[in-house]
């Protein structure tokens, strides 16, 4: 039982390095919320950097497969010619490109919780929402990468935006706002899920109806009336319509207004819900 005592007795004296580290009396005042958010976003981006090209692969593979199959398999049937379909479809794919990876926000948060990293954060005296907000904002890098790649492939296939560079940039900006808002839904899910796999698994239940009952793929005017109503009420449709308008240079203020309204509503519901669930962790 006392076997270890002889071997460690001499080593028990603190080394100089340990003494130096342990006698540090630096006690900075807590960081302001903005710094805490920035540092948390930095963390998310560092993680992405370590993942390397895998991140790009993850987020662009699906949209590109969709882009190719829908354009070349169904494009002629949907819109008369593949060229014409691409003009309609590409803005929709951009929406899909940013909406799908919002799930990662939820899985990443859940991983932090299940691995106990948030336990450490929660014993630290900084503005607590910072780590969550920062992680959402850090994911913007992911969306920008995905959007740029999908747009690049689209251009290579023959997509021509009538709205020019300005229109494309405005569309991307709107999509970033949209993606960050939608990611709050998965942040909330990430707070309650038992495991990261649960987040990605159950996300399909949300993602599929959201992406498919929309006007991303086809114009809703060929659908039965009830379906048309559903599709037109879907915020993803609003986003696709607004993005189409922006890249082709004929966006109406109301198209964009509806998207921003949807972003506001989603954020106002799910951001406080996420923070409520985060705080509730101290009760169970």
């Amino acid at each position, binding site marked *: 039982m006392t076997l*270890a005592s002889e071997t460690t007795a001499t080593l028990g004296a603190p080394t100089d390095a340990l003494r130096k580290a342990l006698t540090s009396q630096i006690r900075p005042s807590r960081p302001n919320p903005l710094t805490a958010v920035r540092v948390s976003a930095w963390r998310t981006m560092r993680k992405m950097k370590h993942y390397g090209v895998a991140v790009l692969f993850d987020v662009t593979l699906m949209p590109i497969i969709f882009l190719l199959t829908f354009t070349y398999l169904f494009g002629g049937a949907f819109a008369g010619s593949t060229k014409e379909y691409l003009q309609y479809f590409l803005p929709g794919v951009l929406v899909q490109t940013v909406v799908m990876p919002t799930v990662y926000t939820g899985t990443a948060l859940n991983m932090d919780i299940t691995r106990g990293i948030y336990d450490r954060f929660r014993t630290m005296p900084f503005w607590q929402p910072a780590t969550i907000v920062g992680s959402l904002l850090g994911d913007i890098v992911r969306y920008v990468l995905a959007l740029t790649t999908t747009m690049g492939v689209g251009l290579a296939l023959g997509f021509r935006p009538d709205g020019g560079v300005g229109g494309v940039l405005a569309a991307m900006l709107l999509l970033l706002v949209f993606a960050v808002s939608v990611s709050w839904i998965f942040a909330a899910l990430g707070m309650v899920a038992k495991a990261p796999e649960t987040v990605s698994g159950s996300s399909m239940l949300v993602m599929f109806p959201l992406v498919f009952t929309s006007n991303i793929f086809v114009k809703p005017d060929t659908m039965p009336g009830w379906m048309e109503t559903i599709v037109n009420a879907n915020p993803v449709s609003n986003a696709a319509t607004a993005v189409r308008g922006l890249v082709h240079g004929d966006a109406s203020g109301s198209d964009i207004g509806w998207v921003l309204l949807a972003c506001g509503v989603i954020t106002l519901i799910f951001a406080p819900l996420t923070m409520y669930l985060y705080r509730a962790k101290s*009760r169970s």
Partner: protein
Amino acid sequence: MSSQSTLAIETSGLVKVFGETRAVDGVDLVIPQGVVYGVLGPNGAGKTTTIRMLSTLLTPDGGTARVLGHDVVREAEAVRSRVSLTGQFASVDEDLTAAENLTLLARLLGFSRAQAAERAEELLAAFDLTTAAGRQSKTFSGGMRRRLDIAASLVITPDLLFLDEPTTGLDPRSRNQVWDSVRAMVALGTTILLTTQYLDEADQLADRIAVIDHGRVIAEGTTGELKSSVGTGALHVRLVKAESRPAASQLLTRMLAAPVFLESDPFALSVRTDDSERIARALAELARSEIAVSDFAFGRPSLDEVFLALTGRPAEDTTANQEDAA
């Protein structure tokens, strides 16, 4: 800074209920500053839940707890600024490097960029991780990860450090390294509350120990006090064959006129007694009965026996073994 007269921890009737389970069921602790305090108990005894309440991660359902003079519920912020927690599972970001992990925490604690980098370097050196600074922590061995985890708790030198089962799952060498850091930290003035299910560990490190079982403190004192509360010394016998244990048990009970404990090791048994003459005769009798003994020892009771004496069952869940043997 804090006056030494303020207690590190003072709880009274602390309770936490999860559904039907009273995970912590009225824990009273009084822990002075400057010591290593051990909370000892088997899995599920309520150790982690207690620590999570004391470090403000969980809100108690009953009772009160003051940490360094601050109430853990009403003055949670004040508690958070003075304590640090190293959880049971290394809570470092596996995707980040060791240096990035420490820099991140330093920045979140308010260090400037330059201060954070310097502090990270200092801590890496202190925990022998300088050469691994640029590696993602998911590539680390269990011992390195644990060291990084402890270093991460020390970015701001805490007045009180909670270590939740700091050596569970570590190899002996890494375990000794963690023990050394614990000794060093307490020597430099940090109070440490550590939970463990290893009696050996509590024996090695802790100045005082609380034994917890089913959410309650069932004994408290120095290791010496706990051992002497169980009483006398004990004879430990290890047999060559596990099958001969029932016969050995019968013989020892008869010869020593004392109850025999079957230990979790199926080859081992122990008897609490002080009578060296009887012990000599009993050992001779074992030899005569051709019960081969591989090893025997006479000494003060181990904490294992303390636990057994306090709870009526071994610290580890060995009910199956005992039934087999009986």
